[in-house]
Each structure stands twice: as structure tokens, then as C-alpha cells.
């Protein structure tokens, strides 16, 4: 989950919007390439570029991507730092996201709150968000104000200096954010528990928002230590999308960001590694507020940076197995067997380390999650043993190529795509030539990745985690059928429940 500075109007809608961006990003850019690994064979530059972005690099190490788009005289200006929740110090969970909030609380030359107020005065919008691998700040504004927002953004790259009382009140804000987005709905906590079980001894198991008890203790000293260590031009990517040319942005950036000194202390990213795990992990969470059960199975699979070839094949599999009303999971579980009212698969390619491939379903009334789990396994076995058909492969490619065209129909979407890619170790070419690379995926490759990563009968160093989120009432039924290798059971705490922001479309009062 990605955490933002503030919700746009209604919190859940904002989250929804961000999710959409990511979907676009995913469809469009697998975002990650395996840039400097040995799998060179796949770094093809075949076919047409999607965005025709221009790239530059300043002497101080700042990378620049410009995506010209002259439809409207506006720009989106973003700075992505290659640091996120997964780069935090032990025991300081949430500090990356807290720092993101504090970036609006006063820097050299700007009073607390002045950044956003200035952007608004100029008719612009701004916000920021933090993920496991990145922290990003952006403004959308009329093109004539680009220089002003650049100047302010450059000012807070090294010059943060918030008053201490602002730090105190902002800590309360992030605690309210956690209550609102995680603790107020059991579905929020379920997602957190699933991650914690999948990423054992790896920072991705810790939520970006932070654990409540650690968030309560975060101080400006913690934030400053983190900021001084990671924030600097040589750990950042500047992305400008809109009514500008590459040369214009390059000139402005040289003038405004150019004087910032390179930060030599920026560490190489290194995260703790998960050891091999030997138990099948099941996460069982019950809660009296839950009326609709959920089943999810999450696999750890390669990201684009780790293995581009595998990642591209997994994207094709995701499209065939989980992409909408004609996908295999939906057809089998929802239409034919009537076991579920919804089913799908999602795969995120944009991650620095391992990433998550998730299969999920919503059980139909009276259907036990175990039946569904068996049906999911059956589909996966079929995929492993029979592979995909030539027609499925071609259709999925055609759809993904079309998604690349739609992706151009946006101002901030392309900037998001490049930001995710570059912050997670992929290159500009990985985004630009994504359609051509998808075109090269073969049915054999797809079957091969299915066999290596998704075989229900396979043996894995990091076995998938299966989770059930159930109503309290079904307790007896579920427990007796449970495979009890390792059950991480979360008893509902007294003060339990949450809002996870995923249900934006259920806001019935929204006209």
C-alpha cells in the first residue's frame, strides 16, 4: 500500500486514484527492468516507443525525464527519491512516510505549510506519497509556474528545518492516518498481516505507514537522520510531463537543481534477506464486522528489476488468468463453478526486491474458502501442465499493446510510470519499449514461469501464504478444515476494525 500526504477530498477516493495510476503503470510499463543483471538478451529496443521521453543527467547526479505533451498548457512536476519504507532503520517503521509529511512543514525560505499554499495560489495541486521503494512529491500546475515549483522543490531537497511543535502535531496526523486507513476496517489489517507473513525477515513485511507503537515514538531526530542519509540530487529522479520541451526543462533544472551538492554518504540499497521457510503459512483472521469472507493466496515472485524475462511472462499470465470478465479465474470460479462472486490475479512488476503475485476470490454464500482454494489450485495445475494457448497469448498481447496507447492519454500517468520504474531499478527504455518486449513473450516462457513459481505441488524457498478473512460466526467450520502447519491467527482486539480505502466504488452517496 502507498501512503499519501493527504486525501484528495475523500480519503478512500484518493487511494483509489493512486491505485488506478498503478494499474496504468502496470499495464503499461512493467516498470522494471532488470537493468544491470545478466539477462541482457531481453533488453530489446524493438518497436515504437510509448512516450518518446527525453532524458538528461546533471553533474550532481540528478536524473531527468521529460515527457512532452502539448494538449493543455499545464505540467506535472515530480521528484522521486529512491528511498522508501523498506530502507528504514530497524524499530523506526514509518519514518520514510513521516519524513514525507514533514517535507511540507518548513524549509529554508518557506514557512510550515507555505509550500502547498503557494502551489494552490498559483492554481496548482500538490501531494506526495511513500511506497516501500520510493518517496515522491508532485505538483500539477500551469506551465508558466514550473520554475516556481521547481525552486521550492529544490529548496526542500536538502534544506528541511521544521519547527518542533509542527513535528509533534504531524505525528498525531500520521497516527490518525493509520487509524483511518488500516485500523478502522479489518480488511486493512488483513492486508498488513498477509504481507508480514510473506516477507519474513525482509522489510517488505513491515507496513509503510509503520507499526502503531513505533510510529508513536518517531522523532525529528529520527526523521533528520533518515533525510540526511537518503535525500539528495544523486538519489533522485526529476520527471516533468506536459507542455514543455526537453531542452526547456534541462535548462531550468541546471539552473535550479544544478547548484545542489551531490551527497556522498548515500548508501547502496541493501535489505535483509528472507531465509528459506519450511512451513505452509496460513493466515486466518476473524472479525465480527466481517460479513463477506475473502480468500487470498500471495506468492513471492521476481520483480522486473530482478528478472525482466520472468516478469514479462508473469504479466502475460496475469492478463490471461486474472484480467477481467473473460479471464480464466473469473470464468472458472465465478461463471462456471459458481463458487465465488469475484476472482482475479494481480502481479506488481515494480519492486526493487521480490514482489507479490496475488490470487484472490470472494466466496459465494455458503461456499467455504477451502473449496475455493482447491479450485484455485486446480486452475493453477492446469496452467502448469497445459500452459496457455496461442490464441490466449495473442489476445493478451493485443490488449496490453492497446493499454500502452491509452496510457499516453494522461498528464500525470506517464510521469507515474517512469517514476515507479526508475525508483525500482528499471530504465527509461524498459518503459518505452515495454510493448515490444511483451510481444516477444512465448507460450513456453509463460508455462515455464508458471511451473517455477505457481505450481501448487511445487517446493519453494518462500512458499505462498494463503489467507482467509472470515466472519466470527464461521469459526468452527473453518478451523476444523484448516491445515494447521502454521496458523497466524489474529484475534480481534477490543478496539478493532478499519477502513482500507479499497471500497471507493461503494460510496453510494457519491453522485
Amino acid at each position: 500500500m502507498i501512503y499519501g500526504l493527504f486525501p484528495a477530498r475523500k480519503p478512500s477516493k484518493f487511494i483509489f486514484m493512486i491505485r488506478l495510476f498503478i494499474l496504468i503503470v502496470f499495464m503499461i510499463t512493467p516498470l522494471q527492468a532488470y537493468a544491470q543483471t545478466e539477462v541482457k538478451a531481453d533488453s530489446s529496443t524493438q518497436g515504437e516507443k510509448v512516450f518518446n521521453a527525453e532524458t538528461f543527467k546533471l553533474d550532481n547526479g540528478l536524473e531527468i525525464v521529460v515527457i512532452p505533451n502539448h494538449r493543455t498548457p499545464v505540467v506535472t512536476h515530480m521528484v522521486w527519491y529512491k528511498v522508501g519504507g523498506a530502507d528504514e532503520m530497524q524499530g523506526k517503521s514509518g519514518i520514510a512516510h513521516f519524513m514525507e509529511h514533514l517535507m511540507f512543514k518548513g524549509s529554508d525560505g518557506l514557512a510550515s505549510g507555505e509550500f502547498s499554499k503557494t502551489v494552490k495560489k498559483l492554481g496548482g495541486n500538490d501531494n506526495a506519497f511513500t511506497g516501500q521503494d520510493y518517496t515522491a512529491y508532485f505538483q500539477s500546475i500551469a506551465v508558466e509556474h514550473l520554475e516556481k515549483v521547481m525552486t521550492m522543490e529544490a529548496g526542500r531537497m536538502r534544506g528541511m528545518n521544521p519547527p518542533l511543535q509542527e513535528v509533534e502535531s504531524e505525528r498525531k496526523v500520521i497516527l490518525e492516518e493509520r487509524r483511518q486507513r488500516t485500523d478502522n476496517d479489518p480488511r486493512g489489517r488483513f492486508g498488513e498481516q498477509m504481507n508480514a507473513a510473506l516477507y519474513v525477515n525482509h522489510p517488505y513485511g513491515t507496513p509503510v505507514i509503520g507499526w502503531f507503537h513505533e510510529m508513536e515514538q518517531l522523532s525529528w531526530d529520527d526523521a533528520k537522520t533518515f533525510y540526511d542519509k537518503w535525500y539528495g540530487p544523486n538519489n533522485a529522479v526529476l520527471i516533468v510531463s506536459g507542455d514543455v520541451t526537453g531542452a526547456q526543462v534541462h535548462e531550468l533544472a541546471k539552473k535550479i537543481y544544478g547548484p545542489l551538492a551531490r551527497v556522498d554518504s548515500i548508501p547502496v540499497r541493501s535489505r535483509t534477506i528472507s531465509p528459506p521457510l519450511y512451513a505452509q503459512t496460513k493466515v486466518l483472521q476473524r472479525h465480527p464486522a466481517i460479513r463477506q469472507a475473502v480468500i487470498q493466496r500471495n506468492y513471492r515472485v521476481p520483480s522486473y528489476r530482478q528478472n525482466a524475462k520472468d516478469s514479462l511472462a508473469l504479466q502475460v499470465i496475469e492478463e490471461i488468468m486474472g484480467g477481467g470478465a473473460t479471464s480464466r479465474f473469473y470464468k472458472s470460479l465465478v461463471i462456471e463453478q459458481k463458487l465465488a462472486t469475484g476472482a482475479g490475479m494481480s502481479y506488481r512488476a515494480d519492486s526493487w526486491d521480490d514482489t507479490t503475485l496475488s490470487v484472490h476470490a470472494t466466496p459465494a454464500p455458503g461456499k467455504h474458502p477451502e473449496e475455493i482454494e482447491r479450485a484455485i489450485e486446480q486452475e493453477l495445475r492446469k496452467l502448469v501442465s497445459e500452459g496457455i494457448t496461442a490464441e490466449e497469448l495473442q489476445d493478451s498481447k493485443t490488449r496490453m499493446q492497446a493499454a500502452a496507447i491509452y496510457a499516453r492519454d494522461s498528464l500525470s500517468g506517464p510521469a507515474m510510470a517512469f517514476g515507479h520504474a526508475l525508483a525500482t531499478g528499471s530504465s527509461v527504455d524498459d518503459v518505452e519499449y515495454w510493448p515490444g518486449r511483451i510481444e516477444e513473450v512465448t507460450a513456453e516462457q509463460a508455462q515455464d514461469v508458471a511451473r517455477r513459481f505457481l505450481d501448487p505441488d511445487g517446493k519453494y524457498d518462500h512458499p505462498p501464504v494463503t489467507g482467509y478473512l472470515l466472519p466470527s460466526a464461521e469459526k468452527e467450520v473453518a478451523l476444523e478444515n484448516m491445515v494447521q502447519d502454521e496458523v497466524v491467527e489474529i484475534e480481534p482486539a477490543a478496539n478493532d476494525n478499519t477502513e482500507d480505502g479499497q471500497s471507493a466504488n461503494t460510496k453510494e452517496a457519491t453522485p
Partner: protein
Amino acid sequence: MRLALLIIFSVLLIAPAPLHARDKVLDIQEVTSPGGIKAWLVEDHSIPVIALKFSFKGAGAALDPASKQGLSRIVSNTLDEGAGDLDSQSFQKELRDLSIGLHFGSGRDNFGGNLKTLTRNKDRAFELMHLALTKPRFDPEPVGRMIASNQSRIRSSLSDPDWMAVRLLNDMAFEGHPYALNSGGTLSTLQSITSIDLDNFVKFRLGKNNLIISAAGDITPEELATTLDTIFGELPQVALQPAPNLETQNQGKTAVYERDIPQTVIEMIQPGIARTDPDFHTAQIMNYVLGGSGFGSRLMEEVREKRGLAYGIYSGFYLSDHFKGFSVSTATANANTKHVLDIIKAEWSKMLNKPVSQEEIDNAKSYLIGSLPLSLTSTDSIASILLSLQGDGLPIDYLEQRENGIKAASIEDVTRVTKRILDPEKFVTILVGKPEGVTASKTYETLPNVE
């Protein structure tokens, strides 16, 4: 002749004009088909994408009987589940294979549709939309599937306090009116919906005479004109009985729905103002200063920035055909509920008793005017704006009028309009959670119109 002139006009305007503002906010053309169907269009051939949006005015959920709550929703979910010779899977497969986005949606007032296609697939896209509107199959399998999926959606929402708060706000503020019902259906009313209901919905609610249409992107006015007849030409005339107009019900009352959660969700509404009202531009300035703008708004400063009491707090206008409201929403730790409610009331008094500053009004104006182009950056968003203008019966040059209206507002205007709209005694307040220090005039034990 007129069309030809429009094309020339628009070509001139579409030439890029970097680094300075354009004369017109948006170059909107009105297109009329040979069959007399009208649409608004913004032409843009820079990307091979076409967006077409339409709405059947007054055909939405407010007309669903109480015993069939969710009917409009089920129609919107099943129109794209098979039409003509194509069954559900064949129809969906074509949409997916051609990457055509074809969706229907229903609000309380209107029933609408969106079509998004690549230029190369446009002919089939238009034909599929035509089929969906005129020859929907409503086969038992997809209808049953969509009912089940909506029932799942409702059950899933029952752990979402935001959803519950909005449900209760509708129940309280719109009591006795169709708006108080659940437009997404209830677990039992959904079960009672049949394919006959769906057929009748299409026959009696979707007509040429209550249709508004917008288009944007890679299509010429001539081609759009022909397309309008292809898609909509066969629709009948319909006669709809509109719902009555409505005042805010239960003014001054506070309802609590107790849930065992750490934070209380707060939803409040009081009477508002129509978008067509001459004071609306000034009211937007008031809202911006008070709570519409996020950072910098008085509510955000007092509740979040100074005291850290919430992640966000926003005010805004609730605009529907028969009810105009002004609402506030936020969420705060249970123990702070009374504190936050007191701050909201205090900010209402402050707005009413002391004029806004020149700086506040200037900031609001420059944002409200300057930010408009930010919502014109995709084919889809442009088509949405065109549809929304028509939906409210606003003129084709409204965006220019709006700019002038906002610019003209003075401090005195804002004071006058504030006194006209704001009234803290008229708030209906919904609290979901375990609010502390608050006296409820009503407590809910269960959610109405859900089971």
C-alpha cells in the same frame, strides 16, 4: 456548412500554444446528427482515442421502487453482459479483445454510459454500444451473477465505517424521499429483481428525449453526427415522473451508530445551493476558504495543521436534481469527536460573523480559475466535463462565464452568500464509531436498507 466552419475553427485552436494561456478554456462544438440528436464535442487528434459519454436524465435510482432498490444498478451491470446475438462471454470477449471500455453507471438522478475506444476499433465499439442499448439480452446467468456480486459488495461494505456513515446520512437527511433508499440495493431487494424489471427499465426510462451526450478525442464533427444516429437513433420517447424536490430532513439532529473501532467517522450536511444559482461562484469561494481547498482551508488548518486531530477534513457541495446540500466529512480518534465537532461549529460562526480577508478571497479566485485546465488533460476527463455541464443545463460557454463570475465576487458578496447558506443549526450529523462527549438525538442499532 456550419460544421465545416467549426472544423476550421477548431483546427486553428488545436495548434499548440505553449507557455501562455489560451483565449478559450475549452473549444466546445455542438454537433447535431441528421436525425436531430445533439452532442457536445471537443476534437483532438493528437492521440488515437475517442471518448463518448452520455446520460439519460432523470432515469436513475430515484425512480427505483423501494421493493426493487438496486434495479438501476443491476441494469448498469448487465447491459454489457450480452446483447443481440452475443451472449455474455462473447460480448465481454469482444470488448476485451478490442480494448473497448464500455461501461454503464447509475446515480440517484441519471443513468449513463461511457465508451472509450481506440480509433482503429471505433466502428465495432459504436455498434456494440448500440446493441447494448437497444438489444440487451439480460440472460439469467449474468443477471444472477451480477445480483450475487452486488450482494457481496454490500456485505463487504459492512466493515467500512465510511460507507456506513454515508448510508446513514442518506437515511437521515433524505428521510421520506426516494434519495433515502439505497441506490446500490439491499440484500433482499436485489434478490427480487427479474429480467422483466430490467426489460421494462430499458423500455420506459431510456429515451431519445432525456438523453445528453458528449464526446472528445479523435473524431470529427461529421463522423460524430453519423455515429449519434447509429448508436441512439432507434431509442423511443419516454415520459418519466420526476421525484419531488427535497429540503434537508432532521435538521439539527445527531445520530450515532456505535461500532467498536478506534476512530469516529463524521459526516454532516446542511442545505446548500444549486450550480445554476447566480450565487454559486461566490459560494465556491466561500467553500474554498472554509474547507474545500485542503491545505490552507480554515477547517484543515484548525483540525489537522494546528492540532493533529485528523488526517483530512473537507467541505463541499452536494449537488443533485432535487436536493442541494453543503457537507463536511472527517474522521478522528473517538476521544476527540466532541472537540472536532466544536471546531467545525466555531468555524461556521467565524465565517458568519467576520468577513473573509482580501488575501483569502484572492487565493480562492486564483485557484478556482487557475486549476481548471488541470482537469482537461485526458480525453476522458474532457468528455466528463462536457457531460456535466449539459447535465446541469449550463450554457456551452459556461466555463468562460464561470471565470468571470468568480473574478467578480467581492468580500461583501462572500459575506452575503455565507449568510445565505451557512447555518450550523441545520446540520444533520452522523457519527460512526465510539464517539465520546456527544449527546445523540438518535441511535441506530442496524443499518437501514441494507439487509
